[in-house]
């Protein structure tokens, strides 16, 4: 299955892109995607404990199981207002 990954703010800068696609085995979770990305872009690992994640524009936990076509987003600590 294939998911789209969205990255924001400094995470986007680290990866050099705001959006990428990843092929995953069935049963993969948000955490699976995060570990893959952190392997590719080691500077992301600093965010392990401070990121939030979302699936299809709803907050979701790292153990959330993904489905084909999902949009996964990783969000560094926020600073709106």
């Amino acid at each position, binding site marked *: 299955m294939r998911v789209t990954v*969205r990255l*924001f*703010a*400094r995470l986007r*800068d680290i990866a050099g892109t705001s959006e990428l696609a990843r092929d995953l085995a069935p049963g993969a979770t948000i955490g699976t995607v995060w570990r893959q990305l952190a392997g590719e872009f080691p500077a992301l690992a600093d965010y392990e404990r*401070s*990121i*939030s994640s*979302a699936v299809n*524009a*709803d*907050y979701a936990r790292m153990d959330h199981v993904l489905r084909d076509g999902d949009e996964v*987003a990783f*969000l*560094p*600590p*926020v*600073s*709106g*207002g």
Partner: protein
Amino acid sequence: MTTPLLAIGPEPLELERAAAALDASVGSNAGSDGAVVMFLGLVRNHNVGRRVRYLEYEAYEPLALKAFERISAEIHERWPDARLALHHRIGRLEIGEASIAIAARSPHRANAYAACRYAIERVKQIAPIWKREFFDGGDMWIEGATADPEDQRARAEAERIACA
């Protein structure tokens, strides 16, 4: 065109539009309200000793709107007679420009003040929005709270500040 109660986008903000959106939403019940409290957040020219030149705001827009809806629902739960309008701007903002406009109304001032303050505190906790600060000598992403809408301690803290 009517202004939505909750919005995020690149257009410049005006408090009057947030207040007007609220007026329209309460319709024929408007006569029962006795207070409107408004907050306008501005881009400041200094931050922890840095001379700020301008800010760039970025958001995960669909989730930001849902976060605003959540904040509005939380306000309805905590202060059932209060109503909220909240507009956030994104893109490049110059010094002195408004990044957020909030209006809260209620039959009594205490709840309007509380709802308005609660809304800005919750935006800073759970809205997926980021500011990049461009200052004399460089730029950096500002990183505040880890967004977790289910974190009841954060919610209680926002409520405590709102009612202080």
